[in-house]
């Protein structure tokens, strides 16, 4: 247990609003080892961002209801409302964030340099106490540290392949292209030398060629610097590209977690199977999954995929416990696909065209 960096255990939460209680996450468990790159995949609206936000502590507080479970990062309880000082020390320093949308995640009225400086002022690896002082508006940025931080910034910008880093720092966010902005985001996520980077669909807003560049960069740098990455995405291809292991979510539940090869070649959960098959290159490229995603206001009990699952039985009314079909492979299903059966495997992965 000691080796795990991030430990999400049985997390259940939801939002109460006018229409009632939306039970978004239902007993989600996620464990990350240092240096691991893990993909968190699932269809739109299945709760990936919610999970990432919960770890980062940016869920809207007034509507949020936590039903159970814990999030621990390196010993710090990230859900506790009393340990805010510790959380502040962790966020932005040990855990950093790459947002989905590089277009709107920069503050439009400050130059990039100002924003990077601000980050380093508080979160530089050299700053002893990464916490928040009493009067942040009036806190100075020590000159000597600023100079050293500046060098660090320039070298990091160069390592994310940004040409002329000095010039870029003087620009406003709207003056640089989307790919450059996303590279800047990666640089900013790397600068505090974090243990974990949470990247929430970092390439959906970009074109394929740029996406390939960015994903490659992210993987290379994370591995070089020994940072773990939690990559949420609904694009299975992206997950395949850079992840060591993958966790699949369906409607707020984690259904399967496996090393990347096992995941794509020997999926165990029926949902994972269907998902892989729905890809244009997949066997069922034109069939999809019949039925609709359940409502969060009134989710089916037990396994939430049961209503659409051809293998479902009465058992599925209870949430299945994890089982382990292989090394580091976890699945929550009473009727997992048999990875050994060639027929079943072909149904999923499909023949090359």
């Amino acid at each position, binding site marked *: 247990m000691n080796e795990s960096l991030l430990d999400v255990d049985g997390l259940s939460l939801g939002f109460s609003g006018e229409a009632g209680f939306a039970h978004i996450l239902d007993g989600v468990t996620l464990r990350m080892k240092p240096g691991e790159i893990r993909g968190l995949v699932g269809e739109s609206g299945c709760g990936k961002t919610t999970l990432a936000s919960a770890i980062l502590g940016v869920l809207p507080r007034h509507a949020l209801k936590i039903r159970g479970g814990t999030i621990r990062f390196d010993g710090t309880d990230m859900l506790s409302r009393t340990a805010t000082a510790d959380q502040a020390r962790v966020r932005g320093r040990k855990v950093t964030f790459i947002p989905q949308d590089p277009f709107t995640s920069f503050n439009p009225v400050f130059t990039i340099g100002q924003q990077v400086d601000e980050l380093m002022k508080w979160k530089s690896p050299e700053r002893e106490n990464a916490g928040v002082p009493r009067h942040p508006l009036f806190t100075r940025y020590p000159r000597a540290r600023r100079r050293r931080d500046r060098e660090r910034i320039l070298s990091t910008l160069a390592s994310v392949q940004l040409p002329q880093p000095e010039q870029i720092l003087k620009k406003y966010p709207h003056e640089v292209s989307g790919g450059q902005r996303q590279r800047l985001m990666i640089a900013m996520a790397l600068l505090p030398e974090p243990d974990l980077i949470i990247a929430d669909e970092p390439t959906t807003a970009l074109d394929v060629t740029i996406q390939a560049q960015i994903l490659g960069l992210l*993987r290379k740098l994370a591995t070089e610097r020994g940072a773990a990455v939690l990559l949420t995405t609904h*694009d299975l291809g992206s997950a395949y590209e850079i992840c060591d292991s993958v966790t699949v979510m369906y409607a707020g539940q984690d259904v399967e977690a496996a090393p990347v090869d096992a995941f794509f070649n020997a999926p165990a959960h029926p949902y994972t199977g269907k998902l892989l098959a729905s890809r*244009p*290159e997949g066997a069922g490229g034109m069939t999809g999954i019949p039925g609709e995603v359940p409502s969060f206001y009134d989710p089916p009990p037990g396994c939430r995929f049961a209503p659409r699952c051809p293998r479902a039985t009465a058992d599925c009314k209870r949430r299945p416990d994890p089982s382990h079909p292989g090394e580091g492979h976890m699945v929550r299903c009473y009727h997992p696909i048999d990875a050994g059966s060639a027929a079943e495997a072909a149904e999923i992965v499909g023949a090359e065209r």
Partner: protein
Amino acid sequence: MSAPILHTEGLECRFPIKGSFGRRLGEIRALDGVSFALHHGEILGLVGESGCGKSTLGKTIMGIQSPDAGRIVFDGHDIAGQSPKEARALRRRLQYAYQDPGASLDPRWRIGRSLEEPLVIHTDLPASERRRKVREILVSVGLPAGHIDLYPHELSGGQQRRVGLARILMLNPEVVILDEPTAGLDVSVQATVLSLFRDLRAQFDLTYIFISHDLSVVRLMCHRVAVMYLGRIVEIGPVEDIMSRPTHPYTQSLLAAIPRIGGRRVTETFWLEGEPPDASRLPQGCRFQGRCPHVQPICREIDPPDREVGAQLSACHFAGEIEVPPAAEDAT
């Protein structure tokens, strides 16, 4: 093959960039000499990066945008520059399905009323007849008739797409331009939507222009594919040929950038650097020169004409001569 039902010649469409005083600061060449032909019954894929002019091409053909130069010949008639109203009879046979079908429906109108609108405008069918047709169409796109009384925001993304299609099909078109019909959809939904297109095509005898930025979808759906880069079709040809033997370096890198599950990781080997230039500041010569790994002096001088390589047309001086970089090779 029969004579094309639709073809364009040297289509150009430019958007001025307005400064203060209404002064022109420059222009975006959204379409820069686009020529292609569309044959009856085929599905022509149109791929390319965001902003390369795919939607503009669709809208120009449709008459929503008027071209600055070039011809659009539909069924033997030049319709370039005519607004939808002017070429009514012809336009009925040519329809455009919006990239975001939810947004193409008036948020304050019920689905039924939106679906009736084309009939109100173009026919003088009595109300009861119109309503009957609406119900018919709803069924053929796979929506329950009860959805007539819903508002657009009460439908899911996939359902909105169906409604968008239903609206277009109301007038029995022959050619339908589908603009990114699966963008933003999850793979599972995308699959069902794609099969719907296939079914409808068979049922109504349609010809599609299928705009997408997703090559794997295009490969699945289309007979021929045109690759656009910065306002120009840089390569066009049968889908299998292009997928297996891309001749334009841009097409090559595009294909190489797509992750292929089970294959080698492209992120480790992907060679293309830099980003596309601004459509308002096209360089002299080949528009891909800034990113092309094979760039030669001639590329900086002369904008390459289309070269024929097999069944493909390719706008590269060295089409058919250059090698696909090794990393891309084993991916194909």
